């Protein structure tokens, strides 16, 4: 017997415990993707129960099914167009009046509905009682009691799903909106029918209600479907809206919402004792401290510091083990594969490139773990509340602060962490300025250059670079807000959910799916980019076009050693020196070297020579590579790659002004390609190109000004 396939959709308010119930139902058999055309995350999973194979789709958490946000439209369209066999609305039973608002809208849609009353343990503990049977009868839907955090009720829920699927359609309860509105609904329905407007999958009464609510999505759909006949409908709607507003003194959308609450209140009056406003509870007491006017910000700073320590200090160890593992792998491949192009590609290109990115994984996992804890416990919303005033001044959202701080560690998780911002403009501005939070990979570059040119005050010089980065971020946030991302951003209204102890299962699933996305996506793109960079730095090959007779020099060194004129140590140094010079020439001969020379005129006004340009290009792969590229270009031999000899070389070739300027340029131009790949994934190709373009331009302009103005004062 083959399993019968059915689809159920999970809907519910934010913080109603919907995700927990989804996890309980599907376990790890989940699939994360996006709804077509939008960046709203789509999660689905499979559960087998009796003879059914049930596809569970987790809809975005919403308060209602209006067309206010992308999430709401996605949830509504899924219910209407995909026609799931059953819709389950997860309801926080300790807050029925609010949560049943969404349920009422689902009842209006006349979908096969089950209400999952979650967190019934909290209700019982508070001594209240819900008459489930009565409420179920009053609302015309079946209700299942659950405690998601303890995994109770999943079986009963699945049983109810099967009952609904097997049973025929039962008579539904209709929500009434009061005489005035009902009259107008009848009027609109008759006009729609008379004009023979196609209503697609929608119920006509439902459309009439939505038109009265002036729901933009539905109005647009009807407008498109009715063509020239729309003017007649538009006229009717206008007159109805005016009529209602003049009689009832509030616009229809408010009256209709009020009627829904009336419907809920009517039912709850019978089946539940309402206590009105909640008393000062535990959450309120915690909030007195955490969102305190004076203590709020210091506490937030401490939490962020703790998170930073957790992610980067603790993450350092597994990251180092992974790094060591890749080193061992390189050594292994070096031993197995004979010298030549294949080995170079494997070791320098693929293992070096992909390995460098994979070593970030522990940090990413810890970061998402920390974020999941902050989100699930309810603190994240408070953090946004506390920081909103300051961040608002530079045109950002309170939550922006979190990815920005993460950016000091690594820009890759910072971009991914920007997901906590629901508003697209907030998210994009936050991502676009995140690169100025100087990441850990840039530090080796600063250490090298500050050490070479300002050994006495290196610490202060490096600090000044970090400070300039922060100032740049503030300036650019303001500029971007005033130009590309102008316009009304969504007003700040955000739920501060009750504090809850997060469940380990929930956090682990959260962490896992995000971290896996990083490994999978970044891994594949990075592989391609690593190979590309390797090609740039390897081809065309120099062949026999060295400027000096290196082969002769090596022979000469060997001869001297054989005849005992030099010691073994001197021999090693001699060979290494020659090889380093050869490597330098090979690099100069390669495409990257040529691009460097080609671009030199562009960078001349900044005081850079072609070697600095090549180093900058290599920094695109990863910023710390700049140091090793500089080493190769200045022929610092492998055995003696002490930073000091490179520092001396740099000091002899450039002025301190140019050195400082190079640090500035490194700070300002876009972060590594791994970060750009993630940027593209999160925000699209256009935004990624904008990010690359404007940071390059900014880096050039700032460095140009610093060099040209500095030249006047410093000789």
């Amino acid at each position, binding site marked *: 017997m083959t399993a019968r396939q059915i689809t159920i959709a999970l809907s519910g308010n934010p913080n109603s415990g919907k995700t927990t119930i989804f996890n309980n139902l599907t376990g790890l058999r989940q699939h994360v993707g996006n709804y077509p055309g939008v960046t709203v995350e789509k999660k689905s999973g499979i559960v087998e129960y009796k003879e059914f194979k049930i596809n569970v789709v987790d809809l975005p958490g919403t*308060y*209602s099914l*209006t*067309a*206010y946000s992308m999430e709401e439209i996605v949830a509504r369209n899924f219910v209407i167009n995909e026609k799931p066999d059953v819709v389950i609305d997860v309801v926080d039973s*300790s*807050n029925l*009046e*609010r949560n049943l*608002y*969404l349920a009422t809208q689902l009842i209006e849609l006349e979908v096969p509905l089950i209400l999952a009353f979650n967190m019934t343990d909290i209700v019982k503990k508070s001594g209240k009682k819900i008459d489930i049977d*009565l409420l179920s009868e*009053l609302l015309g839907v079946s209700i299942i009691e659950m405690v998601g955090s303890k995994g109770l009720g999943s079986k009963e829920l699945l049983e109810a799903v099967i009952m609904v699927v097997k049973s025929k359609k039962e008579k539904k*309860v209709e929500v*009434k*909106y*009061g005489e005035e509105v009902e009259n107008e609904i009848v009027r609109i329905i008759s006009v729609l029918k008379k004009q023979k407007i196609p209503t697609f999958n929608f119920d006509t009464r439902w459309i009439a209600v939505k038109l009265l*609510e*002036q*729901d933009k999505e539905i109005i647009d759909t009807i407008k498109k479907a009715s063509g020239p006949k729309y003017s007649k409908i538009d006229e009717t709607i206008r007159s109805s809206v005016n009529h209602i507003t003049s009689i*009832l*003194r*509030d*616009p229809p*959308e*408010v*009256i209709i*919402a*009020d*009627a829904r*609450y*009336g*419907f809920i*209140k*009517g*039912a709850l*009056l*019978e089946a539940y004792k309402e206590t*009105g*406003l*909640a008393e000062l509870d535990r*959450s*309120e007491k915690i*909030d007195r401290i955490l*969102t305190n*006017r004076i203590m709020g910000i210091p506490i937030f700073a401490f939490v962020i510091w703790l998170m930073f320590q957790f992610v980067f200090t603790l993450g350092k160890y597994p990251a180092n083990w992974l790094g060591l593992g890749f080193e061992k792998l390189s050594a292994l491949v070096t031993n197995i594969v004979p010298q030549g192009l294949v080995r170079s590609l494997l070791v320098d290109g693929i293992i070096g490139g992909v390995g460098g990115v994979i070593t970030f994984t522990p940090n990413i996992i810890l970061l998402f773990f920390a974020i999941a804890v902050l989100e699930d416990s309810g603190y994240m*919303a408070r953090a*946004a*509340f506390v920081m*909103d*005033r300051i961040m*608002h001044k530079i045109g950002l959202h309170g939550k922006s602060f979190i990815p920005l701080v993460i950016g000091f560690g690594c820009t890759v998780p910072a971009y991914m962490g920007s997901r906590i911002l629901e508003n697209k403009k907030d998210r994009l501005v936050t991502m676009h300025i995140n690169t100025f939070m100087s990441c850990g990979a840039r530090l080796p570059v600063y250490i090298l250059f500050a050490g070479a040119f300002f050994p006495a005050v290196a610490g202060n010089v490096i600090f000044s670079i970090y400070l300039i980065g922060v100032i740049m971020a503030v300036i650019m946030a303001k500029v971007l807000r005033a130009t590309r991302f102008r316009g009304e951003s969504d*007003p*700040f*209204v*955000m*739920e*501060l*959910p*009750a504090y809850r102890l997060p469940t380990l299962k929930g956090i682990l699933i959260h962490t896992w799916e995000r971290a896996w996305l990083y490994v999978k996506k970044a891994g594949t793109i990075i592989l391609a980019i690593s190979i590309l960079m390797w090609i740039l730095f390897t081809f065309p090959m120099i062949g026999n076009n060295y400027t000096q007779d290196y082969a002769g020099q090596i022979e000469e060194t060997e001869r001297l050693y054989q005849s005992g004129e030099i010691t073994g140590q001197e021999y090693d140094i001699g060979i290494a020196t020659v090889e380093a010079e050869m490597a330098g020439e090979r690099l100069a001969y390669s495409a990257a070297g040529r691009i460097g020379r080609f671009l030199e005129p562009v960078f001349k006004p900044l005081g850079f020579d072609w070697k600095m340009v090549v180093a900058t290009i290599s920094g695109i792969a990863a910023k710390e590579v700049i140091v090793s590229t500089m080493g190769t270009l200045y022929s610092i031999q492998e055995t003696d790659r002490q930073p000091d000899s490179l520092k001396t070389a740099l000091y002899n070739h450039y002025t301190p002004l140019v050195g400082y300027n190079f640090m500035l340029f490194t700070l300002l131009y876009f972060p590594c390609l791994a970060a750009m790949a993630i940027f593209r994934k999160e925000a699209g190709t256009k935004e990624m190109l904008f990010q690359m373009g404007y940071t390059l331009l900014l880096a050039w302009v700032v460095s140009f000004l610093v060099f040209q103005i500095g030249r006047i004062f410093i000789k």
Partner: protein
Amino acid sequence: MRRWGLQFRGRKANREHYRAEDIFSMAEAAPGKKYKIARIDSGCRLNSRLCAMGFIPGEVFYVSGASRGGPLCVMVKGTKFAIGRGMAEKIQIREI
């Protein structure tokens, strides 16, 4: 049948007449006090949104916190919300 329990109620209770001078915006609300929502006047899109969150004329809410120039912390229908100043200015309230 208990169908009568589902009859539309609520609207009538909210139909009160407010004198204009009694009404002020939520941005002026003092922490630690309860108020009643008189009316909301933003666009219809935002009206629907606020209604769905429980900000509906006649509803009593409690201001649990506010910082100067920053968002307000407001409890309505058993859930706490942070509301930006700009948003709060669009919600008209009155003393109970």
